[in-house]
């Protein structure tokens, strides 16, 4: 079931989430530059607004007003479809991420758009569509660099999706449900990062690859592919891809939070920690993970492509299977 909300509540939730995600994504670009600057002993953006906080807005204006330069023999329709889809799948997946439950005046309010009894499956299903955006971007431009980038990214995404899904199954076994709220609820005592450390590492490694971030950012490797699948994109169309990447980051962090870091649950299940509302806990954990991703990006070298694929198939996947095997055995023995 998708939920029992009134349709207008749903609408409001949806609008808020979409706007919120775009804003967060925009500010993540700012954060990334700041973090990069700190790591490289620089200042980062600091001209537009206080501490450069308006920089994302300025970027947005710039991208919007730039002239559209597009390859002449592109596939006109798909050239437009590609960027439009970017981030779409990710936003859709966010619809079922629970950020808390409140009971207001006998109205049970779920901090998500849709409460869905097989939320995890929904996420896995929807995120598997993300590949098309990259692929279409790479293919439609009719340029070999973008094509190679597109193909690489698709291959990479598919390979890692397997590993990532396997990593998640351990948590499902522990929680005994696919309902994300129930999975969070099962972490009341112990977060799954404690019970499933290997799975968390596997998932998050895979998540880097899924979001095309360093050290797995082969599809858009500047030095080899001149930025990969979006080489031939400019102005706001490029902006959409850019935005999509950061939305993706938010999503993978949210999933990791929900499945491994106890979602909206406080760090410790007692006062004063549980005075802080659940959604804030959730956001906090997501922010920590996002920072971690940026940190990694600016401190790790990039893998070679074949190593990347090997890593996915020959390390992550077997380990994921092993994790399932161990978890399943333990759960079966204890039951």
């Amino acid at each position, binding site marked *: 079931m998708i939920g029992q909300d009134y349709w207008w509540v749903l609408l409001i939730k949806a609008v808020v989430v979409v706007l919120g995600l775009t804003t967060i994504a925009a500010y993540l670009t700012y954060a990334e530059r700041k973090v990069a600057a700190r790591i490289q002993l620089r200042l980062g953006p600091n001209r537009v607004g206080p501490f450069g906080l308006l920089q994302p807005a300025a970027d947005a204006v710039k991208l919007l007003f730039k002239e559209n330069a597009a390859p002449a023999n592109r*596939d006109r329709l798909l050239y437009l479809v590609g960027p439009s889809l970017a981030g779409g799948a990710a936003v859709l997946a966010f619809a079922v991420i629970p950020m808390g439950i409140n009971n207001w005046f006998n109205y049970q309010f779920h901090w998500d758009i849709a409460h869905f009894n097989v939320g995890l499956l*929904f996420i896995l299903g929807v995120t598997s569509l993300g590949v098309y955006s990259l*692929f279409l971007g790479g*293919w439609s431009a009719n340029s070999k660099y973008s094509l190679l980038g597109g193909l690489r990214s698709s291959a990479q995404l598919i390979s890692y999706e397997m590993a990532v899904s396997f990593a998640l199954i351990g948590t499902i076994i522990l929680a005994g449900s696919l309902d994300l709220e129930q999975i969070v609820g099962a972490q009341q005592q112990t977060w799954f990062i404690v019970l499933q450390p290997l799975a968390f590492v596997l998932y998050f490694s895979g998540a880097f690859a899924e979001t095309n971030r360093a050290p797995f950012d082969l599809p858009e490797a500047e030095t080899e592919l001149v930025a990969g699948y979006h080489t031939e994109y400019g102005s706001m169309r490029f902006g959409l891809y850019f935005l999509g990447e950061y939305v993706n980051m938010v999503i993978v962090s949210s999933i990791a939070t929900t499945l491994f870091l106890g979602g909206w649950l406080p760090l410790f299940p007692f006062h004063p920690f549980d005075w802080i509302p659940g959604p804030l806990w959730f956001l906090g954990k997501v922010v920590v993970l996002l920072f971690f991703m940026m940190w990694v990006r600016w401190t790790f070298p990039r893998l070679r492509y074949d190593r990347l694929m090997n890593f996915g198939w020959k390390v992550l996947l077997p380990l994921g299977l092993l994790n399932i095997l161990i978890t399943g055995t333990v759960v079966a023995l204890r039951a």
Partner: protein
Amino acid sequence: MTALIAVVMALAAISAIGVVLSPQTIYSALSLVVTVTMISVLFLLLNAQFLFAVQLIIYAGAVMVLFVFIIALLNPEAEDRPALDYRAMIGLAAVAAVTILVFVTARNGITYGSGGFRGQQVGAASNPYHTFAFGADAVNAAGNVQTVAGQLFTTYLLPFEITSLLLLVAAIGAVYLTRRTKEAA
């Protein structure tokens, strides 16, 4: 909700036409992506959540990507035959006829009457295997993933095992057929 269903079904149908009539292979493939996605939504609406996920992950996320991949790699040229020639016209007429016929047959209440589906009534009378042991809404109450999974590994274990063999065969075959050997020219 009815509007949603109608839109989803219409999109599925239109994109299916696109699969057949697109002059370019890649458009066919992308139309098929839309079709399978819409079908997955239908599955969701039909309370088959597990199938929804499987449809998206396997079909949209893997099978269709493979298609798109191969098309991009091989880059087959557009067909020289016009997509909408007389054969296509005949085909589409047949499609329309069959669809309407099936619709009318199903609509006329032969398949189901006031007492529910005929298969259900007849089945209930003749069933030693508890397939209908779930009450009318047992499937709907909790996620039916559990029900499906439970049945999959007990009653339908044999078919399930056959699929594993099938996948193994397909994998071996694909590797064999695409493997480059020294004697390859």
